[in-house]
């Protein structure tokens, strides 16, 4: 919904309220009114970003691969991973909607070095343009255009588009929405054509084979791959943390009191960004009723859009992979050898031989589309997150302004990306690959701990999470960190 014509916030006289909510060591949050929740359960929301980021290589490649290698029973781990991520999403939203602050600011309220840890991990993990290669390689197979050209053109395009956009959020939401809409419809149609009740029944019953782990999975070769796939079930790495920035920018909950980030060209029109968020009066029953409305809204997003779409795409891709393996045993071999491009190519060929060459091209088109979604989302989110932390916590950064900081981070990561694509290893130097994979999963365990601290200590009692939610997030911390460290100590490798 285009809100760029909304009158600037300063045009409406602010309703002042002297009360504040003290949270941690940073500035206290002034008490303001919580806006009304959207009147109906409406399918327009910032979850679109999480879906765009989350439906990626884990869903289209890693899990179909594991299913072909170990059977559909392995999918119980996927069910746990995605369900866990849905709860994480709800808890991330709790803090962002109650305060209009990002989870990074929440972390800084608890303990500033915690926030700097995420700042550094984001740079270490997300500056490498390796994630572009799967999508661009798929595009090369369809069109013959060398993947490096597509990848660089894609990078420049992303930079130009985000720099010119008046209000970045609206543009990105519209583009991603159309892409994801097409992806969901297309995946459904493909799955309807190539799959059968038998495939999907296997896939679904496999999800409830809790505890199943075949002996070959418990090996130095495969266990790290399984841990990696668990980390990639749904949004991975820091994507959930960035989701809080999208919530804020879409004006969800108290985010309505915070101005939007603009593109570089329009940075001059920016409204001043407050240094801290806001809180609503949790003792007022009317305000609490509105809060319940917001929670309903985000729960709907988490269950239907996030959980539903992620499940649909993964089940569909798994069904496609299963029928591909039946038709072409080469798929299985390629998967075993961990040659992602060959496996995707073999899957496409198998799909082609079942249908037509057009079908194979459509399959690769979806992989390219997923790559494009991830690229758009990742670069934007990374720059948004780093700009947010820099603006709020680096002395003097406020003079530069949030939108310019966003532009600086965006172009820095793009230029670095192009240089690396031309001259360096796209995934990052081989020597530190393991470390990067480790950090990415470690960040997920760390944000579970951060969430527990932030939501239980920085929010007023009436809006703190319920016990069962804390138990699930605590389980998340143990799940990610436990798998990671077990893998490290038992097999001496980070993740695969």
């Amino acid at each position, binding site marked *: 919904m285009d809100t760029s014509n909304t009158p600037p916030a300063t045009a*409406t006289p602010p309703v002042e309220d002297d009360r504040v909510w003290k949270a941690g060591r940073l500035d206290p949050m002034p008490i303001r009114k919580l806006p009304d929740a959207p009147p109906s359960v*409406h*399918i327009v929301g910032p979850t679109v970003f999480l879906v765009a980021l989350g439906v990626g290589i884990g869903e289209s490649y890693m899990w179909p691969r594991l299913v072909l290698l170990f059977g559909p029973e392995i999918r119980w781990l996927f069910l746990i991973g995605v369900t866990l991520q849905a709860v994480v999403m709800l808890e991330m939203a709790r803090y962002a909607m109650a305060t209009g602050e990002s989870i990074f600011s929440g972390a800084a309220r608890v303990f500033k070095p915690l926030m700097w840890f995420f700042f550094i991990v984001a740079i270490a993990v997300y500056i490498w343009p390796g994630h572009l290669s799967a999508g661009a390689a798929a595009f090369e197979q369809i069109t013959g255009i060398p993947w490096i050209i597509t990848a660089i053109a894609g990078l420049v395009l992303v930079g130009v588009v985000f720099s010119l956009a008046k209000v970045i959020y609206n543009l990105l939401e519209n583009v991603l*929405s159309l892409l994801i809409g097409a992806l969901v419809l297309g995946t459904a149609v493909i799955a309807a*054509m190539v799959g059968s009740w038998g495939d999907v029944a296997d896939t679904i019953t496999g999800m409830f084979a809790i505890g199943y782990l075949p002996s070959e999975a418990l090996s130095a070769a495969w266990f790290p791959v399984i841990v990696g796939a668990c980390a990639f079930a749904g949004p991975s790495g820091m994507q959930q943390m960035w989701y809080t920035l999208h919530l804020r920018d879409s*004006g969800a909950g108290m985010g*309505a009191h915070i101005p939007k980030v603009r593109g570089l060209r329009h940075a001059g029109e920016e409204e001043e960004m407050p240094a801290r968020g806001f809180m609503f009066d949790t003792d007022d029953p009317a305000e609490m009723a509105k809060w319940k409305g917001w929670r309903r809204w985000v729960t709907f997003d988490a269950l239907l859009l996030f959980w539903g779409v992620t499940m649909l795409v993964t089940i569909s891709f798994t069904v496609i992979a299963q029928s591909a393996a039946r038709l072409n045993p080469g798929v299985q071999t390629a998967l075993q050898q961990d040659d992602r491009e060959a496996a995707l190519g073999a899957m496409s060929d198998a799909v082609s031989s079942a249908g*037509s060459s*057009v079908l194979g091209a459509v399959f690769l088109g979806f992989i390219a589309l997923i790559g494009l979604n991830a690229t758009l989302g990742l670069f934007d989110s990374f720059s948004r997150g780093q700009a947010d932390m820099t603006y709020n916590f680096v002395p003097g950064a406020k003079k530069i302004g949030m939108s310019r900081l966003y532009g600086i981070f965006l172009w820095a990561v793009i230029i670095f990306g192009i240089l690396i694509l031309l001259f360096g290893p796209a995934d990052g130097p081989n020597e530190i690959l393991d470390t990067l994979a480790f950090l990415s999963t470690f960040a997920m365990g760390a944000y579970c701990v951060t969430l527990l601290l932030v939501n239980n200590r920085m929010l007023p009692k009436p809006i703190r999470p319920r016990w069962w939610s804390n138990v699930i997030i605590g389980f998340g911390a143990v799940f990610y960190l436990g798998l990671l460290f077990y893998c490290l100590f038992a097999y001496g490798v980070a993740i695969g």
Partner: protein
Amino acid sequence: MMIERQSLELALPGASIGAAAGAMAGGLVLFAGQPIGMAALSALALALPLALFGGVYGLLLGQGVFRPGTFGPTGLFWMAAFPLSRLVQDSLFGTGLTEGVLPFLGYQAMVGLGFAIGFVWLHERLMPHWLVRRAPDNPRAEAVLGIYLQYAHALRARKGGRR
């Protein structure tokens, strides 16, 4: 006649989405060695029913049976409409229902639920723009636009109340 035309206009976005999804399937149903003409017919056999049901969705939205953006009823609608569309296509140009009709319909109904998510998602993006264009000449479009505007006003009210 005028009223029919006005209703049909409401059906257009949904029908287009259905047709586009069917067309996407165009190449997919080609079975090795089948001539292009046959493939085109097969694509048409899916695009037509999907477009028809998409249009019916728009009409029902205009009648107030569906509320904009809500998922539940739309999900149920496609759980029935999608399998029927596939059944039409498969019985005309398919390989025969090797699994039997019930497993086939059951599977397609499940996929239909996923299809519904994508459908509502896109419909919510396209419909308001289309209504804004048609509202001056079409009272029915204006009425549906009113529902969307209520929502937009509620959104604007909370954005306007910043700080």
